[in-house]
């Protein structure tokens, strides 16, 4: 198992500014065009730009889409990604409906569904994550350190509360 297999996506909505660079990167990598319709990750925008959420396949450990797909087209890759086998998919969208976030996206070329493949073999980091390197809203981190990293961020915020300025004697 390479270290990439142990990685998971972590989203911090607070950091997303809706720049959609991730969508561009994704569509460009897989279709050679920059178009949100061709992207497997999409940004949901709420309010007057006060909340942007990157929505994409969570690659569940026990994916519901695999269980409900009538064509058995949803498959788990060795790197943990859950993707659609286009030879089997008939575009019935069952995977979209069962998905807690409605992640699968229709492939505008074939009409079949598609989800994040983590830029499978050829990229060091998924391109959307690379595109988000400035905002860091989207990170692709080792699963083993994710909790610790979040804990550290939170602890940094709490530190001030716990550590009152020193009272001079």
């Amino acid at each position, binding site marked *: 198992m390479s270290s990439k297999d142990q990685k998971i996506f972590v989203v911090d909505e607070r950091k997303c500014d809706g720049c959609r660079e991730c969508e561009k990167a994704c569509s460009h990598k897989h279709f050679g065009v920059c178009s949100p319709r061709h992207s497997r990750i999409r940004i949901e925008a709420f309010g007057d730009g006060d909340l942007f959420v990157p929505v994409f396949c969570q690659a569940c*450990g026990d994916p*519901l889409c695999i269980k409900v797909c009538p064509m058995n087209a949803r498959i788990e890759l060795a790197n943990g990604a859950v993707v659609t086998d286009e030879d089997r998919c008939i575009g019935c969208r069952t995977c979209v409906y069962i998905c807690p976030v409605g992640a699968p996206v229709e492939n505008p070329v074939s009409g079949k569904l598609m989800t994040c493949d983590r830029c499978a073999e050829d990229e060091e980091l998924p391109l959307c994550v690379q595109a988000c390197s400035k905002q860091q809203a989207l990170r692709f981190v080792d699963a083993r*350190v994710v*909790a610790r990293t*979040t*804990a*550290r961020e939170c*602890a940094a915020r709490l530190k001030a509360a716990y*550590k009152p300025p020193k009272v001079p004697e």
Partner: protein
Amino acid sequence: MPKKMMIVDPERCTGCRLCEQVCSVKHNGVSNPSLARIHVVKWDNEGFYLPMRCQHCRDAPCMRSCPVNALYRDEELDSVRINHDICIGCKMCVSACPFGAMGWNPKQGRVFKCDLCHGDPQCVRFCDMKAVDYVETSKMQASRMREAAENYAELMRKHGR
């Protein structure tokens, strides 16, 4: 059963991370702090150590974000727990938890979190400094007040009022 809660006191923490180790051994049978449900966040260049663990929030973001309700409140211990039979491993809770209390175990393909060791938290048991403690909720406030009062009294004595 009296309701108890976990508290941390960074002033007492010596940063030894024994809590992390015993946690991973208790739950996973291996020594590996990255599988621990408690993390001592350390600032080595300030000497400030803050153990971070699940707060068992009343209105828990992890529970709110779980699409299959695999996270539930155990009323007996007043804790937030996972039902692994239901969990689909979508990791939404990992992103949702602001405290970093949700971990992901890639080997098992499931999330993990503090379960208070069914009422006998091992981190508390092994922490002789009681930097993490599991105390009765009703006594908690009183003891913190007493501490504050003592500090205040100390200051008064020192500065001769």
